[in-house]
């Protein structure tokens, strides 16, 4: 592994020396080798202990974590010893790489293993290998497919958020007074935790009996302002809350795009006699298209993680109408302690997301190319 990490002089003209004294090289290799052996030894010891083969071992796996850290330090030192200047350069990247491998790659692979287990934390039996049982269960799980269907709605609703955010960005880039004040105020909802928003809006403002929104709706002639009773109304209310929190993000990025737009373009359109709508339709919008697509994709990525608000306001109700995949899996674990099945659901979701996003990225590349 250590041989394949090579850093070569790029933007720096300072030459990375290729010649390090042989003794230092040997010392570096020995260090890495020793550290690796030590790490493997500790790992083996603990594995045997966990399997019950040996009595010697640690009470939990934390020493493995420490051993991994020590190994990473030794590996880094080995890089400097064996590869000198180039080792020093590799050292910039290595901490982040080893961190990510330890907390993402390894747990994800471990998750694939868990997903194949029939493992209920509350049952006494412990994990049992189930092969593809979980997958078969997913195919028949109407709640899961229902949640996926809801995700389609939530994802499409991003377009609505985008339209409002674009309008706000245009307002903020117009010639107005107190621009900074409005910008700070419009940004605020983004800072609030979705959990607090769940209570502030979902549980109190929209509350059926005393919530001011319900009172206002009654005054406007809606006799029965139940925001979370019927499936579509509940879905829309959840979406409205999520939009409230996330519109500022889209708005800020679009605003930056608008401000980076050359002024001459707009003025040229004005000289040509274009009215407001025409210059937006034919000048502003096409120029903003690449930024728009970028921000839409980022927003969709975050939307696919939507959970907090749903968990706290409706818990997926009524009848699963507002469930997102994340909130559904959360309940699979919280109510049924079903780790194996929950992980399998999450893995299938990840697969769907990866396929969807690669399609989206490819499509978006074509659109942006057509414009430019």
């Amino acid at each position, binding site marked *: 592994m250590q041989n394949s*990490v*090579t*850093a070569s*002089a*790029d*933007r*720096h003209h300072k030459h990375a020396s290729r010649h390090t004294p042989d003794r230092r090289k040997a010392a570096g290799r020995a260090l890495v080798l020793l550290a690796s052996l030590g790490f493997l030894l500790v790992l083996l010891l603990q594995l045997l202990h966990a399997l019950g083969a040996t009595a010697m071992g640690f009470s*939990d*796996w*934390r020493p493995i*974590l420490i051993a991994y850290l020590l190994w990473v330090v030794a590996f880094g030192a080995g890089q400097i010893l064996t590869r000198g200047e180039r080792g*020093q*350069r590799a*050292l*910039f990247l290595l901490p982040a790489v080893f*961190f*990510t491998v330890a*907390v*993402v790659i390894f*747990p*994800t692979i471990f998750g694939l293993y868990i997903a194949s287990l029939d493992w209920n934390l509350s049952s006494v039996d412990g994990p049992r290998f189930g092969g593809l049982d979980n997958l078969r269960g997913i195919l028949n799980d109407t709640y899961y497919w229902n949640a996926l269907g809801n995700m389609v709605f939530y994802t499409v609703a991003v377009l609505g958020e985008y339209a409002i955010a674009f*309008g*706000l960005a245009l*307002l903020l880039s117009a010639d107005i007074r107190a621009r900074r004040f409005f910008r*700070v*105020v*419009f940004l*605020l*909802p*983004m*800072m*609030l*935790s*979705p*959990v*607090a928003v*769940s209570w502030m809006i979902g549980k*109190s*403002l929209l509350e059926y009996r*005393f919530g*001011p929104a319900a009172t206002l709706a009654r005054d406007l002639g809606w006799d029965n302002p139940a925001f979370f009773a019927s499936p579509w109304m509940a879905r829309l209310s959840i979406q409205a809350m999520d939009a*409230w929190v996330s519109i500022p*993000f889209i708005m800020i990025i679009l605003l*930056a795009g608008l401000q980076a737009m050359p002024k001459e373009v707009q003025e040229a359109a004005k000289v040509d006699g274009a009215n407001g709508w025409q210059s937006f339709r034919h000048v502003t919008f096409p120029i903003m298209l690449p930024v728009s697509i970028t921000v839409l994709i980022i927003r969709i*990525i975050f939307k*696919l*993680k939507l*959970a*907090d608000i749903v*968990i706290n306001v409706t818990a997926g109700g009524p009848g699963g109408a507002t469930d997102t*995949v994340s909130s559904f899996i*959360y309940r699979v*674990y*919280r109510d049924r302690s079903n*780790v194996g099945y*929950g992980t399998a*659901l*999450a893995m299938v979701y990840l697969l769907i*997301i990866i396929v969807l*996003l690669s399609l989206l990225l490819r499509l978006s590349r074509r659109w942006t190319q057509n414009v430019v």
Partner: protein
Amino acid sequence: MGPRAKRMLSRMLIYAALLFWTFICLFPIYWTVTTSFKSAVDVTQGHLIPWVDFQPDWKGWRSLGLSPDTLFGTSTARSEFVNRFVNSIITSVGASLLALTLGSLAAYGLSRFRYKFAWMRNDDILFFFMSQLILPPVVLALPFLVLYKALALLDTRFGLILLYTLTVLPIVIWIMRDQFNAIPIELDEAAFVDGLSTWGAFLRIILPLAFPGMMAAFIISLVLCWNEYFFAALLTSTDAKTLPVMVASQTGSQGINWWSMAALSTAAIAPLVLLGIFLERYIVSGLTTGAGK
């Protein structure tokens, strides 16, 4: 209608729209803050304006042990709240600092040197880091539950810090790489001429220059970690509970008083509202990194 009248009208429409959205943004916050000073009657009758509609009272804050008259007494509610608050601060600051350290190093490397790891070049490595953003928390949550149990990291602040670092690391790398790319390479070279090593040049010359970007990355990380709920809800139970988990658990219980819930929500969002008002510049500059390119 003359052109001047038309102009006036369009300006009025713009300000009307701006004020309307200001109302949309501020009313929920206003409602929460004022409700924390209401009594039951004021809530049920929908009173809105303090001193006009209703007499403000420290009711909500008293139930948290944070009103003037209870502030110096002992209060279990307050000690729980303070404990959660401190947990939130430690986990979000800790994770943001760790992510900033790891992310800045990686971003500097990616901005200055050319790496090759198997088939992966710089762009692939960057994509590798950024692709972590796609991963929904649910995919990691349950494996982490099992792993943390084995590592005895369940319900610890350190365990949360590791996970939060992971969620903000891609964003930090993205912001910092842009920041380092904007610093001319000649500065590094001048440092080498002065006899500094690669790391010396980074630590003593480049890093101080990248400070505004680091602030932006740090603050955005802070916001994201402070508000994180999903992992905290699954992985903490008593000791390491953070503020969002506390808010959520109170929401769930039946018959909770509106005023105490409002006080709790106000206390939970206050630090971030202040951050948003005073450090808006950094937040905007961090978010717009790379936009419009």
